[in-house]
């Protein structure tokens, strides 16, 4: 206790040095005076009395120093001096300090911003109780190469897991996500003025217990509850006007009456922020065919992930034996829930984080250049200080203090930059952040920022400090270590160039694959289009009526002025994922084929080229014979040498469909996947529940949308138009991730290039100044300006070439790691490498130009006179 008190008082003491000095002086004077008086009383002469008193006391200044050391904290005080001196030094050369701080702020800001994104997506705990104890259980089919990220579990297996396991305190399921983890369930709220679409998720009644979150208003569903709904906070705020009496009210959702039993707390989201209504599903019907369920479970206290995996493997093996026809190739997978949510964004995030890390290294190396330059010009000062007795450690500490001051200023600026980046992302690219994550500058981000800020001085400042503090005598200061300085700098430049090459190559690869993706042959045109989704299943239960209404809408759309084509397909356009496959018979063999239901006008509206035969006609109805149109991938696959026209596809109980036409491949699923063989059946022959209409027409999109809406409502007053967008929007949205990746990496690479150029320039400019004597003498001896010019250029280009070689080797290795993120090009894409080489050499030549032209303008006489 007393030690703590003493320590605190010493800290206070640091700031009371002057007062202490005064008091000590007075106390010591008094002490000596008392002693002299005593001595006089003992009979000494005054001189003797004074001499003895001083002798007895010991060294006054020595004692005083001791007292000072004991009263304050000498190390802390010395650090204060260092800091004060550092700030003075920095203020003496504000320009170089400004460049240093700006460069560093760029590096620290970029890493902090990237960390805030990475932390938000991968690490920040989800808003559930002890969220790290939650696991996702998926079903992995050994027949497929890679496990998908969409729902994968059959409900019967889920029920079996729930019953048989001993490792989970709760197992819950939820239904309603598509292959990409997006919410696919649209609930139509009727019984209000205008039908509203709410995004819904069907969940098992114990989900909220498993998550450990209770509703903010109301309560969780009972075990058998199946006529209730729980609203998300945002939905309650935006759609229900934050009605405080909402709990207990009935709403009509997709035709059935549901009682609102609760509102979830603010900030709650599951499994992402799209879900507006949670529908407790009550009893679950076991099914082994459809794998459309997601499963989440909470580990029992004390159970590890490994134990859970082992037990689930045992249960999976038992199910394989019990249900060989459906489960033979299935095995359960257990992953941390957060991990499984973030799985799809992890590779790109890690790639970007590495890129930012490389940028940070370049920044540090550049700042190290600047520091080297500063210490080089202050070599005389250090030599004098050393000869006056400053130790090596003392000098290093002093220089590190300077670096620290610069770094702290840059760290604050970097934090501000991270904050700005956050605002920019939220403003311009909110979809870049996965919907389960939140982007915040919280205490962990600040901790990261501070750590980087404190670490940076050691990265960029220690080297220069060490080399400056090398023992040098004043005598040979003019010639000393010139060579070693240049060697360090050349090394730094080579390193910078190598790192920039890696970034530029990767950015080039991403730009190339984005361009490849953007010019993929879609098989349809995106200009002057509008698409929207109509789900008639809730409003028109009869198949015949639905077919009739779809036909009527299509017909009336075509009558509108300004609309020249309209059609519909049952599947969402660019909705992602596979699925929609059905077992068919082709040439007497059982096949899995993608079947799509389309209206006659569909291919016209999409502007898809017809290659052979004819398109579906309005006259192809339920009563006429079944027909099909296939894509050219189908023809290539099944009829490589002959025409598919006139052949038949067996559609099971519905009988055979005759192929009447072949169309070009439509990229309807995802742009980066090759087109799969597909057959299109007129939707008047097999009637879908919902369709996506595509309208092709001139004029503004708003007018097109208004026309479409009035046409739809003239046929059916209640059905709302969902997902209104142009095909262009859909295409852009489907490649937005790649675009973002490419543009982010390009930005980072551009910054790296700029810094590398600055580095090359700095080194060369400095070396020209250093070698001005030599150049002057050479010119005086008759060297031609061109010779000098090229000598300087060669000096600058040499480290660049070394860096290029190392950079290419590293980039080649790195590009293999990001192969999975590329599209349409190989990692060793020659065009990218060539481009990188050209850009880097051009940039470095440009950087060499100014110092080189300065060198040839040197006046030999002026230089020699200086000697």
């Amino acid at each position, binding site marked *: 206790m007393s030690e703590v008190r003493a320590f605190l008082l010493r800290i206070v003491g640091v700031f009371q040095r002057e007062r202490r000095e005064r008091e000590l002086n007075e*106390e010591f004077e*008094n002490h000596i005076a*008392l002693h002299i008086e005593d001595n006089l009383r003992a009979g000494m002469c005054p001189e003797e009395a004074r001499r003895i008193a001083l002798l007895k006391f010991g060294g006054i200044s020595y004692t005083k120093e*001791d*007292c000072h050391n004991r009263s304050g904290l000498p190390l802390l005080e010395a650090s204060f001096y260092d800091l004060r001196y550092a700030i003075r030094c920095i203020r003496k050369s504000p320009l170089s300090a400004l460049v240093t701080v700006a460069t560093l702020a760029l590096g620290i800001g970029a890493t902090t911003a990237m960390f805030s994104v990475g932390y938000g997506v991968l690490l920040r705990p989800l808003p559930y109780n002890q969220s790290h104890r939650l696991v996702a259980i998926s079903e992995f089919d050994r027949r497929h190469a890679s496990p998908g990220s969409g729902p994968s579990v059959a409900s019967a297996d889920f029920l079996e897991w729930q019953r048989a396991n001993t490792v989970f305190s709760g197992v819950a399921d939820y239904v309603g996500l598509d292959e990409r983890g997006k919410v696919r369930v649209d609930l139509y709220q009727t019984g209000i003025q205008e039908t509203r679409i709410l995004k819904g998720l069907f969940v098992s009644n114990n989900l909220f217990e498993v998550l450990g979150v209770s509703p903010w208003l109301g309560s969780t569903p009972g075990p058998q509850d199946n006529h209730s709904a729980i609203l998300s906070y945002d939905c309650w705020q935006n759609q229900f006007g934050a009605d405080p009496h909402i709990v207990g009210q009935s709403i009509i959702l997709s035709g059935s009456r549901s009682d609102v039993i609760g509102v979830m707390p603010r900030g709650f989201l599951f499994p992402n922020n799209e879900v507006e209504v949670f529908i407790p599903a009550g009893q679950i019907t076991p099914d082994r065919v459809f794998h459309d369920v997601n499963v989440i479970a909470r580990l029992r206290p004390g159970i590890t992930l490994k134990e859970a995996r082992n037990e689930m493997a045992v249960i999976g093996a038992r199910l394989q034996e019990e249900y060989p026809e459906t489960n033979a190739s299935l095995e359960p997978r257990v992953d941390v829930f957060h991990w499984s949510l973030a799985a799809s964004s992890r590779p790109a995030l890690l790639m970007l984080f590495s890129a930012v890390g490389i940028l940070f290294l370049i920044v540090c190396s550049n700042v190290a250049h600047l520091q080297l330059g500063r210490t080089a010009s202050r070599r005389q000062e250090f030599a004098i200080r050393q000869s006056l007795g400053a130790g090596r450690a003392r000098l290093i500490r002093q220089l590190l203090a300077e670096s620290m001051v610069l770094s702290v200023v840059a760290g604050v600026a970097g934090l501000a930059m991270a904050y700005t980046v956050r605002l920019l992302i939220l403003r311009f690219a909110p979809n870049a952040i996965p919907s389960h994550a939140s982007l915040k500058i919280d205490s962990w981000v600040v901790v990261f920022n501070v750590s980087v800020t404190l670490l940076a001085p050691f990265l960029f400042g220690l080297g220069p400090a060490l080399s400056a503090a090398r023992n040098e005598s004043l005598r040979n200061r003019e010639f000393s270590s010139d060579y070693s300085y240049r060697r360090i700098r050349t090394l730094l430049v080579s390193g910078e160039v190598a790192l920039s090459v890696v970034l530029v190559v990767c950015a080039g690869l991403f730009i190339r694959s984005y361009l490849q993706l953007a010019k993929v042959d879609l098989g349809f045109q995106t200009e002057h289009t509008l698409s929207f989704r109509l789900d008639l299943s809730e409003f028109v239960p009869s198949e015949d009526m639905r077919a009739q209404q779809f036909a009527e809408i299509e017909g009336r759309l075509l009558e509108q002025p300004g609309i020249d084509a309209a059609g519909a397909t049952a599947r969402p356009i660019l909705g992602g994922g596979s699925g929609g496959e059905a077992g068919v018979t082709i040439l007497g063999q059982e096949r899995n084929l993608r079947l799509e239901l389309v209206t006659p006008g569909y291919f016209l509206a999409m502007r898809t080229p017809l290659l052979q035969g004819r398109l579906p006609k309005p006259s192809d109805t339920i009563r006429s014979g079944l027909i099909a149109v296939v894509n050219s991938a189908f023809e290539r696959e099944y009829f490589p040498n002959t025409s598919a026209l006139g052949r038949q596809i067996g559609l099971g109980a519905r009988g055979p469909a005759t192929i009447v036409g072949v169309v070009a491949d439509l990229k309807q699923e995802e742009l980066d996947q090759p087109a799969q063989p597909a057959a299109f059946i007129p939707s008047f022959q097999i009637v879908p529940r919902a369709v996506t209409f595509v309208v092709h027409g001139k004029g503004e999109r708003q007018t097109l949308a208004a026309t479409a809406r009035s046409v739809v409502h003239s046929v059916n007053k209640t059905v709302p138009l969902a997902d209104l967008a142009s095909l262009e929007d859909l295409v852009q949205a489907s490649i937005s991730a790649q675009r973002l990746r490419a543009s982010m990496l390009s930005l980072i690479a551009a910054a790296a290039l700029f810094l590398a150029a600055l580095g090359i320039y700095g080194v060369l400019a400095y070396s020209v100044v250093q070698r001005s004597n030599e150049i002057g003498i050479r010119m005086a001896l008759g060297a031609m300006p061109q010779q000098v010019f090229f000598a300087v250029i060669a000096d600058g280009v040499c480290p660049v070439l070394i860096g290029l070689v190392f950079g290419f080797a590293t980039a080649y290795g790195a590009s293999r790691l990001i192969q999975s993120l590329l599209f349409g090009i190989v990692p060793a894409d020659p065009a990218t490498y060539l481009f990188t080489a050209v850009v880097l050499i051009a940039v470095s030549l440009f950087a060499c130009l100014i110092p080189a032209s300065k060198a040839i303008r040197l006046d030999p006489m002026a230089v020699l006179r200086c000697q």
Partner: protein
Amino acid sequence: MILKTLESMGALHGYGIARRIEQISGDEIEVRYGTIYPSLIKLEQEGFVSSRWDTSANSRRAKYYELTGAGRKRIRDEARLWGETVSLMARFLRAEKEPG
């Protein structure tokens, strides 16, 4: 020693303490008087002594040091500890003298 001195003499200035220690030790310890000042600062920081400026008998302003409650307790603790150490050592020394 400083604490003990203050205990027996009451409030005292630095010079007085130094002289007193020298007297008690019977001039066996040759102290440089200055060295007691850092010790006094340490004791004051730890809360065992307190100090104040006052006027001395011969009307000279001086800094007086005085024992605090914590200081008194410290002396008792130290004395006890010392006593224990001494008696322990004494027992060991005795035991060595008794062979077998």
